[in-house]
């Protein structure tokens, strides 16, 4: 029982981290229609910036400064890169972000090395908050949850209540109309892109020390974040939250289940040779593929396709 509770808690932490990453991308995709391939790279930059800053002046300043730096970088990328390729169409935008992800993936190991950096949980929160079945539960993980929940509440309130939120929601569905009403849509786009990147950076700051901060961390999450955003129904913050938690639980829970696929399928009446190549697969093996499977099936079989949520 306590074991299950622990799995659930870890799934919740991972899911909330995914949410912080995907909430930024949700805003960008939903509003600008740009599938930002480099989004997870900004997450990685957030973690590395936080590492350097926390070594210099500590974790708490890094919590504020690193996301801001990443956000500024996002603004520069949008203003001087994306905007220039925008007129060449959607594929050109996608290719630009692919190239950007590639370059960031090369520059990061150049500056910080090819192996993981020792980015650690701040000492102030590195104590067991409670004990479950003999396992200590770190207070920092509770802090992570609190930050994620605060982000969700803040975003939701900002989009629902503020004037800028109103413009953003309107620009999601009717960009020309919003422009005609005198709002500077390109400037709103730049802001949204910067804010989305800053959110990814924040996820990096608070996630990089619990998981590991390595040059491979962007690639490991890149496609999963897309899966989350698409599952959540582009442009929907609550949708992104639900999808993030679902994938967080599935991934965390399945890692601890190591029943062979052959035996499981045999129990529900599907014949699969339990000693063949497929039969010996365990659920833990197959789990990483789940988000991608959902990504493919949702896109290919949903009659409205990718842009279903956008009105056009």
């Amino acid at each position, binding site marked *: 029982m306590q074991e299950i509770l622990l799995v659930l808690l870890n799934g919740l932490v991972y899911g909330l981290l995914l949410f912080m990453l995907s909430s930024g991308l949700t805003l960008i995709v939903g509003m600008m229609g740009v*599938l930002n391939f480099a989004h997870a790279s900004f997450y990685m930059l957030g973690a590395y910036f936080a590492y350097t800053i926390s070594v210099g002046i500590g974790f708490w300043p890094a919590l504020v400064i690193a996301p801001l730096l990443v956000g500024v970088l996002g603004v520069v990328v949008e203003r001087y*890169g994306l905007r*220039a*390729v925008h*007129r*060449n*169409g*959607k*594929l*050109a935008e*996608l*290719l*630009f972000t*692919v*190239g*950007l992800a*590639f*370059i960031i993936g*090369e*520059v990061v*190991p*150049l*500056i910080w*090395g090819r192996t993981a950096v020792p980015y650690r949980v701040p000492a102030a929160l590195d104590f067991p908050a409670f004990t479950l079945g003999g396992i200590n539960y770190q207070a920092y993980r509770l802090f992570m949850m609190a930050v994620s929940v605060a982000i969700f509440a803040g975003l939701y309130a900002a989009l629902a209540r503020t004037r800028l939120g109103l413009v953003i929601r309107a620009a999601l569905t009717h960009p020309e109309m919003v422009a005609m009403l005198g709002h500077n849509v390109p400037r709103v786009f730049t802001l949204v892109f910067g804010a989305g990147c800053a959110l990814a950076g924040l996820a990096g700051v608070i996630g990089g020390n619990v998981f590991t901060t390595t040059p491979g961390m962007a*690639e490991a999450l890149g*496609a999963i974040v*897309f*899966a989350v955003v*698409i599952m959540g129904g582009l442009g929907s913050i609550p949708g992104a939250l639900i999808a993030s938690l679902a994938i967080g639980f599935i991934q965390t829970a399945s890692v601890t289940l190591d029943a062979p696929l052959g035996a499981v399928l045999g129990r529900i009446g599907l014949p699969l040779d339990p000693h063949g*190549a*497929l039969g010996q*697969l365990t659920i833990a*093996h*197959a789990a*990483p*593929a789940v988000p*991608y*499977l959902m*990504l*493919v*099936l949702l*896109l*290919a*079989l949903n009659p409205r*396709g*990718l*842009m279903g949520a956008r009105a*056009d």
Partner: protein
Amino acid sequence: MPGETQLPASVSVRPARRIGRGGRGAALAWGGAIAIALIAPHLFASGFGLSLLCRMAIAIVFALSFNMLLGQGGMLDFGHAVFFGLGGFATMHLLKLVDGGLALPVVLLPLAGALGGALAALPAGWLATRREGTSFAMITLGIAELAVALVVMIPQWFGGEEGVSGDRSGGVALFGFDFGSAVQIYYVLAAWALLAAALMWGVTRTPLGRLANAVRDNPLRVDFLGYDPARIRFLTFLLAGLFAGVAGGMQALNDEIMTVSNIGSAASGAVLLMTYIGGVGTFSGPVIGAVLVTLLQVALGTVTDAWQLYSGLIFVAMVLWAPGGISGIVQSHAPILRAGRGARLLGPYLALLPAVGLTLAGTVGLAELAYRLQAVRGGARAGRLFGLAVAPTDPWQWLLPLALFVLGAWLLSRLAPPARAAWQEAAAQAARGVS
């Protein structure tokens, strides 16, 4: 969504060549390609040279198959290496059977690659080609990740970390090819490359090839002209998977080993890089890109660790400023040169040269210093750069390349707009003069 698949406008507005009129030029180009394939191993007879040529032959077929989708059909496939890799594994398994005594000519094994690639493209294409544009691209991304997960999950078939390996010197020696010498594998691969390229070129001149272009430009209208755009995408996808499988089969024969990395995202990224740098707008673009990028990779790879970074920077620069790639740049200047207006561009272009040089020198300087810094931290020696002793830990050494870069970029921002204007004017005049 119409318009979603539109490629960069700057690739677009030029007359498509009339099929048939280009007959003599095409014959000349193919004759040249065969001649180069025959002469090359004599010019680069060293083991290093031959292995480089072999890698080029493989890359050419792979890039051409990728461009059947991106350039001809407007489909960005993020998982093209899946078909390359599975074709390679299929070839590898057959090669192992041959090693075990099956009497087949090894020379013909890339056919197994074709079959493997096409079979893998069947379910993938069925799912992906229902969509166009960015949705298509995202589906292929998911399929690529799924394929890698599958390959890792089933070590019984794909050999896990070590991969699957075999020995090409067994089997029946067809046409006297027993792979006893290094030059033999080159001739076999060159023959396959020429054959596959010729077939892919042929496809561009068939009804399906033309329909693929039409679907790239305007899928909605194709639907109203009696063809199902999804079906055209599907058939094109199968053919592209088949030829990627041929390339994978060639790779299997060349390396005698296939691993997960041949399927993964890095391999898919590499083919995108080559094709885009060469140019997606023409048939020859991917060939140029494959040759150039392979060459740079090997040539630069021996001198600097920064090769990956440079290729990424070149790619982004192309996306931003030359979406037609190298062949696009050549093609946009051909009518100007033919109309005899090239001389007018000389001035503005020459003025750009120092600015480009400064920017490049600055970029290379910064990148190299960074890589050397990493090397020094790792305990290695910094070595020399452009004949100068490098001390990457000295902040002053960073100042010079930084200054060069800033100066170059500033000059470029000043000089590029007039050069562009001169080009546009010359192109407009050339177009008026011709029609």
